[in-house]
């Protein structure tokens, strides 16, 4: 740990309090970070020196949900609340890493589904706040596997968000929910050029975990899968990444693996009215239980990077309709210049080529969705020896038919980008509204 973490008064005070009443509140959630923080102060350092896993948790204090504590005094670290009107991980800023997990339910009754979501909710609330799973006893008994798998012990919350959604198959005949399926959440049609592989498609439940640390994110997926054992099985998982905040402190628009800034044209998440129009399902939309939720579409899009790498810069820029360097629209100056569909180049042709990705995806200017994509790299394609890498495209919207499907139909038909990409995976999830403290994710549906 960094010594500077310990210098704030608050930390000293917290630690001082707890050292007077060691072990008095053992059954409260234990902040992963508290464990190490306390160990660094005064005589408590012996705790760590002792090395026994049990000792690590014995003297920890009651867990408080104060951000400063969770962040070990780092004021630039944000903790996303788990409970609230909306689930975090949708309009909250994207983190450095993604671990996505698609699950299939193996239980037969809605009651068991409910139980799973209740357990998941508690676990997710703990993990997003940086707490250990299970109380101290459940992590120190020598006769049992520890409740928390442990790889995130001592790590800060890392802005973790965990977002749950129900796939189309969730609404089949098994749980009696067919009538609850929202009209705004249809099956996706087969788009032109789709090369979908079953092992990257579908799922009863989608869980999007994002965090600024891959180990923290993985820990969450792993523990959710563990909790689900006997109730649900993993169907597929995908890790994703983008440049880290450390690599780009200025926090500009991240670049995808084709080298272009990706996310520029996204709607402004700070505009609440716009978010209600574009992202959040509304009570009057037809499925009242989804009010405050959002529909996710995830597409695993492989990039033919070898081919892309041998196309000229001009070709590349005309593919997106933007300059690679600045991210500005072709013919424009600044990254955030509006797309001018009427602009002409020197030869009198549209400055934004009619088959360019930005132009086509812009549509009429009124059809929008919120993209929250990550790059992925999954080693080699054994058959060709080429990189299996691309974009794990995630988007959120209020109505899948009117937004993603309408847009993808246009892109699939004419996007110049199609020369370089191939959609190999696809899934849709109706992401529930947020849960209130004491409630659980999905409680408006079950």
């Amino acid at each position: 740990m960094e010594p500077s973490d310990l210098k704030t008064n608050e930390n000293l005070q917290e630690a001082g309090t707890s050292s007077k009443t060691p072990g008095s509140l053992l059954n409260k959630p234990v902040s992963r970070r508290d464990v190490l923080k306390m160990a660094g102060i005064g005589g408590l350092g012996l705790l760590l020196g002792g090395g026994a896993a049990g000792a690590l948790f014995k003297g920890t204090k009651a867990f408080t949900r104060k951000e400063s504590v969770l962040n070990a005094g780092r004021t630039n670290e944000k903790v996303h609340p788990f409970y609230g009107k909306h689930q975090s991980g949708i309009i909250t800023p994207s983190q450095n890493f993604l671990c996505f997990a698609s699950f299939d339910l193996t239980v037969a009754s809605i009651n068991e589904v409910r139980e799973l979501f209740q357990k998941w909710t508690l676990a997710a609330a703990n993990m997003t706040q940086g707490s250990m799973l299970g109380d101290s006893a459940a992590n120190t008994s020598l006769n049992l596997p520890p409740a928390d798998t442990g790889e995130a012990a001592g790590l800060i919350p890392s802005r973790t968000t965990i977002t749950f959604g129900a796939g189309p198959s969730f609404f089949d005949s098994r749980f009696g929910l067919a009538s609850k399926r929202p009209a705004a959440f249809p099956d996706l049609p087969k788009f032109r050029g789709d090369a979908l592989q079953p092992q990257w498609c579908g799922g009863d439940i989608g869980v999007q975990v994002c965090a600024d640390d891959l180990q923290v994110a993985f820990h969450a997926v792993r523990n959710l899968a563990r909790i689900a054992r006997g109730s649900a099985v993993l169907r597929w998982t995908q890790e994703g990444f983008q440049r880290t905040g450390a690599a780009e402190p200025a926090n500009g628009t991240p670049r995808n693996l084709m080298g272009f800034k990706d996310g520029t044209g996204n709607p402004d998440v700070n505009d609440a009215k716009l978010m209600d129009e574009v992202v959040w399902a509304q009570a009057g939309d037809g499925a009242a239980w989804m009010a405050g939720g959002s529909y996710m579409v995830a597409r695993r899009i492989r990039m033919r990077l070898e081919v892309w790498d041998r196309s000229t810069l001009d070709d590349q820029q005309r593919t997106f309709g933007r300059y690679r360097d600045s991210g500005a629209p072709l013919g424009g100056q600044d990254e955030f210049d509006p797309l001018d569909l009427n602009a002409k180049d020197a030869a009198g042709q549209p400055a934004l080529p009619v088959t360019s990705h930005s132009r086509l995806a812009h549509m009429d200017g009124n059809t929008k969705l919120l993209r929250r994509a990550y790059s992925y790299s999954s080693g080699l394609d054994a058959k060709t020896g080429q990189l299996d890498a691309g974009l794990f495209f995630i988007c959120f919207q209020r109505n899948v038919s009117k937004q993603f499907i309408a847009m993808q139909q246009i892109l699939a038909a004419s996007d110049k980008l199609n020369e370089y990409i191939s959609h190999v995976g696809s899934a849709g999830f109706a992401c529930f509204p947020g849960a209130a403290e004491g409630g659980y994710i999905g409680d408006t549906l079950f």
Partner: protein
Amino acid sequence: MNIRSSLALSALAATLLTAGCSNSSTDTNSANAASTSSNTGTAAASASSSSDSSSAPASASAAASADFTAAIDSYREYVITETDALVKDTGAFVDAINSGNIEEAKKLYAPARMHYERIEPIAEALGDLDPNIDARDGDVDPSEWRGFHRLEKALWEDKSTDGTKEYADRLLSDTKLLRAKVETVDIEPSLLVTGAVELLNEVSTSKVTGEEDRYSRTDLYDFAANVEGAEKIYELLKPNLADKDPELEKKIGDSFTVLQNELNSYAKDGGYVSYDVLKEDEVRKLSQNLDALAEPLSQMGTLLGV
């Protein structure tokens, strides 16, 4: 594994026992693949109703730290019964090999092994016995490779019993040594608890992947036997568990049922279909059902106190 051998090895040699010495051996000896694959439910049920149900519930509720004496005694009996059957069935298997009857030997191979697989954690705790009996090619130095899988290779891959007599005879004497040793094993409650999970871990790491019986493709026999061995332990601890954590007890019981049903769908001619027949998604489903069982099973340690 928390297991201790209380007799010195030299003493063991003197008391080396042969097949058939144990009271209940005849019942089990007659068990062939047909009965073992189909009767797990009843075997388990009778186990819980016969030996322990009378004494265990009373003792479990008596004190905070439960009394496992009844469960341990029953388990020891089970282990002895299985090793008796192992010695007997291995004897027949070895006879077939030594008389050059390849087809007969092939038939006897997988059922004989099941007795071993049901009690594998015990055998593994007894020093070199496990590698001598059950090593696969590559597990040990080639010069030391013997046991079941050495003979499996001769039967299915070399298709010849030439030069196998030495291995066959050694296998029989190794199983007899195991039979002698199990009598002396000190079984602790923690062995029961971890042993059950270990049996399922065996399935996870080699059987479900088809690495165990790579020549004969009889992996599902071993799979089933490991599960049966774990289920036996669960049945013995069930009264204690029902007392301490009924929800967990039910969850484990349900998960065993799911997995057994799944396995039963691959039963064939008193045994199991060849591993080769399984499709990818079928293997995955077996594996996931196994994990679904092993996770709650690993919580049985709650019986030992926290």
